């Protein structure tokens, strides 16, 4: 991609970048020591449900496609009010959550659905409630970068907390540097 593509208005579908995900467990240690935040035991993978491939629109097909055994924690699907599909994983161990989200991503990519992936979200909650509020770490699959999202209400977010998370994690995690890409995810199903 360069100036020529820009001039002619060309874009090509971006391949998702999956490997940066594995930096999260290390960063979580910093989150715990600096901000007293621990994993909520929930993670979600958000993707756009397609209209064409009817074969993968049902939850059973998706489960089959993602090739999950139900032994390692609960897996469920939900569709949010904006029409996006969420794969939700429950597991008290962050390392397992990351591995399973990565596995789901990989099989989506293998089945040619990589372009549909929007983001992965990991929930973090105060170890000693109420603390300073919970934070979701959002992983932008196309950019391969993380950013924090700390909603405090229907359409309000705690920007100060988010910027503090960024300043603590800057060295551990590939953070999204362009703050205008720290989009909100209101009413998301991951806690």
């Amino acid at each position: 991609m360069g100036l020529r593509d820009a001039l002619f208005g060309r874009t090509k579908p971006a391949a998702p970048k999956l490997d940066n995900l594995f930096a999260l467990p290390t960063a979580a240690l910093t989150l715990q020591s600096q901000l007293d935040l621990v994993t909520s035991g929930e993670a979600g993978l958000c993707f756009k449900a397609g209209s064409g491939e009817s074969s993968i629109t049902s939850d059973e097909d998706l489960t089959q496609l993602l090739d999950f055994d139900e032994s390692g924690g609960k897996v469920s699907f939900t569709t949010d009010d904006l029409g996006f599909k969420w794969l939700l994983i429950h597991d008290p161990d962050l390392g397992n959550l990351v591995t399973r989200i990565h596995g789901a991503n990989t099989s989506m990519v293998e089945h040619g659905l990589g372009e549909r992936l929007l983001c992965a979200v990991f929930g973090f909650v105060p170890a000693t409630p109420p603390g300073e509020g919970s934070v979701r770490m959002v992983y932008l699959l196309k950019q391969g970068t993380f950013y924090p999202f700390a909603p405090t209400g229907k359409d309000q977010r705690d920007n100060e907390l988010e910027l503090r998370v960024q300043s603590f994690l800057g060295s551990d995690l590939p953070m999204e540097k362009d703050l205008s890409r720290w989009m909100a995810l209101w009413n998301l199903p991951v806690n």
Partner: protein
Amino acid sequence: MAKTNIEKDHGLDVRMFITGLALVLLYAIIVTLLLRFGVSFVFVIVIGAGLLFSQYYFSDKIAMFSMHAHEVTPAEEPRLHQIVDRLCLLGNVPKPRVGVAEMDMPNAFATGRSPSHAVICATRGIMTRLNDEELEAVLAHELSHVAHRDVAIMTIASGVGMLAGLVGRIAMWGAMFSGGGNNRDGEQMVLLEIATWLISIVIYVIAYLLTMALSRYRELAADRSGAILIGKPSVLASALVHITGDIGKIPRTDLRKSEGMNAFFFAPALASGTAASLFSTHPSLEKRLDQLKKLEIELNG
């Protein structure tokens, strides 16, 4: 004052600079063309003044149009109207028309050729980000622009700048055609013509920089009057912190709904870098906060 790590909104600065530069270039091109076709200088000045005047006279419509803003009634935006009503009573100024721009970027502006033709406008982004008190502070700042007749002042300032450029050009042309007479050959003429161009561009740029400096002072003046009007400089300071710098850049738009969704589903053709801004119509946040802090001590200390 402690040094903050808050940056300016480069995108907005660059946009404003480009707009200003485009305006100057437009004038330069029109003037050059007219002179080329043998139109007299007096006529060029009259046309330039006419353009400036219409820009001033229709300033409210031009600004509303370029920001995609629309006027709103008290029924549509009761909160915004209530705040403006109260401020106008407090400051004893006529109530301007009130508008809203449907964009997430936190911003507000006031424009119009006179206080009775003014329009005060807030973006949706600023209304969701600020609480009532902070929004009131920002609107007080904008109302001060109206009361200070900043649209008229800035029009005159940029008019003077253009006039300076024009006078510089006239002087150069005078030098070109007097003196040497028929002795000059074609090559020399071309060089002289280029020199004329360069000098008038330099004059335009200097005039533009001076206009920007004036604009920054007007902003500080509006900060001051606005803060005095509401009596709480610290609230305006907190509003500024919430809408400029890093916090102002974090969007409220939903990732799944964002218009720039393509940016997430497709790789961007050009990476979005931050262009450094050399010219700014607004003073730095540090300067503004510093002034407000002093004012807070004066008023409430």
